[in-house]
């Protein structure tokens, strides 16, 4: 079946350092979403990318969708302790199904 892998699985950074997580799908995606889940919490929607090569920014967060629509990345500039959590990508293989395959997640720890 379709798989969505994320690397790295874990990342520890010093506060102020940058962080990037990569998401790779075994098949072409219609669109991709990113979520953040704090420890003990529920996933919170961050953004959706639809177009090939799309780049979107939210303050210190930059999201990219690959040209082939099979990979994506989330980059955080100058991490803060509030960035702690697990970041998931979620890909939709087919338009209109609203079914998302979640990636394996990257757990971020930020050391003050």
């Amino acid at each position, binding site marked *: 079946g379709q798989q969505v892998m994320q690397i790295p699985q874990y990342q520890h950074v010093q506060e102020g350092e940058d962080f990037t997580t990569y998401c790779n799908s075994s098949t072409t995606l*219609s*669109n991709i*979403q990113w*979520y953040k*889940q704090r420890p003990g*919490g*529920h*996933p*919170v*929607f*961050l*953004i*959706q990318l*639809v177009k090939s090569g799309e780049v979107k920014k939210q303050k210190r967060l930059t999201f990219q969708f690959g040209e082939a629509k099979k990979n994506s990345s989330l980059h955080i500039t100058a991490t803060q302790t509030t960035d702690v959590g*697990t970041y*998931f990508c*979620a890909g*939709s293989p087919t*338009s*209109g*199904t*609203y*079914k*998302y*395959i*979640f990636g*394996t*997640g990257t*757990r971020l720890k930020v050391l003050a």
Partner: protein
Amino acid sequence: GEEVAQTPKHLVRGEGQKAKLYCAPIKGHSYVFWYQQVLKNEFKFLISFQNENVFDETGMPKERFSAKCLPNSPCSLEIQATKLEDSAVYFCASSQSSYKDNYGYTFGSGTRLTVV
């Protein structure tokens, strides 16, 4: 309010007992989804509804799992004869109708099911 309400927050069942979880989606959201999150953070898709109709049930272990979304009632996910491996956090999410807009899922806070 603009939140997905899931009850109960915690549920403990003996192996073989029935478990029933509830989810009230955001009013106006056409789609409801159930996901199972196990300890390694993996999210497994179970089932989705478009209003009260099953939209995609490819993730459901049909022998023991069933789900409904009836009009004017919370959606429900029922597990007959629970097994130890059913222990997980079950998340419900709802979304607006158009995936093309920048709307993602709105998740509930989850129900933690522990089977002992």
